[in-house]
């Protein structure tokens, strides 16, 4: 009995270790819990990308369920998701872009606003324009406040301006169905019945 136990302990330990390491093969090293979840949109005051004289604040999300898409023309994956987002917007989903540019580094700015605008127009003409409007995150401060690590990222914001879903990576049909659809349906049904969640 004593002897059998002596053999069993290392074996169980070894198998446990195998299981642990095996799981690691399939884990995503980039995956992390977003800190933004269930928190209100951080305060901001940013211009519209196309009409810089318009200024948006966090209050712009109040009253309507919005999918906020963090993107830029320099980001290849963002181009992949543009057609799908366009399809979503045609189904009535309110999609707003949080645009930030890579080259327009506030400290070493070399790109003019007109050029950024032209690039955005070119790409949305080609791949579809899902955006009701684009908020221009000039200094990328709002992206930082949202805990954005890169583009694309998408956030579902409810009618009270609370972030409900934070997705890192592109939005496609599978991601929308698995991660967004249920929450979106629940939130929009509240709008229809006029019940506002506090």
């Amino acid at each position: 009995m004593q002897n059998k136990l002596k053999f069993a302990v290392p074996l169980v330990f070894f198998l446990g270790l195998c299981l642990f390491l095996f799981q690691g093969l399939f884990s995503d090293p980039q995956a992390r819990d977003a800190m933004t979840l269930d928190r209100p949109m951080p305060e901001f005051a940013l211009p519209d990308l196309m009409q810089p004289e318009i200024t948006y604040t966090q209050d712009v999300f109040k009253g309507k369920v919005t999918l906020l898409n963090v993107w830029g023309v320099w980001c290849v994956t963002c181009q992949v998701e543009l057609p799908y987002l366009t399809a979503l917007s045609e189904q009535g989903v309110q999609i707003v872009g949080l645009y930030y540019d890579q080259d327009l580094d506030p400290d070493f700015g070399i790109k003019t606003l007109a050029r950024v605008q032209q690039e955005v127009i070119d790409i949305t003409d080609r791949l579809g324009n899902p955006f009701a409007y684009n908020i221009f995150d000039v200094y990328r401060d709002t992206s930082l406040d949202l805990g954005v690590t890169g583009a694309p990222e998408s956030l579902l914001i409810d009618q009270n301006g609370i972030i409900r879903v934070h997705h890192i990576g592109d939005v496609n049909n599978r991601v929308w169905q698995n991660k967004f659809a249920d929450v979106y349906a629940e939130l929009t049904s509240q709008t229809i019945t006029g019940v506002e969640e506090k």
Partner: protein
Amino acid sequence: MKTVLVITFALLSVATFAAQENYQFDTVEQQVLFKELTATLRCPMCQNQNIADSDAMIAHDMRRKVFQLISQGQDHEQIVSFMKSRYGDFVYYQPPVTRTTIWLWVLPIFVVLLGFVVVLRRTPHSLPAQDEQAALAKAQALLDEDK
């Protein structure tokens, strides 16, 4: 030949210096704090690089933010919690002690203690008593046989 080698290596080394922004600090303490923070804050985009080493855009932005916060007079603690509230505990190389992470400290101590227990409790392997005389006689007999 030697000169050529030296020149080649000198040229190669130029290409390896990291991109660094030039931040101007009011005091030396602020500069020290900046170095310390950028060395201990982890880039959330890259695999195990601090934001001082990383050239990712997010690391640039975080360095700039750290500089801004230091210029505003925030201390080490405040800046770390600013980053943690946005990027989670992941962003700081010193993990907090929680129910999950406590094992990082407890487990090594436990293993060492277990080692002590195993060593101390091990009964010395007693050798079977040998009849030395008989063995010697046997050996002698074999040696005699060989002659």
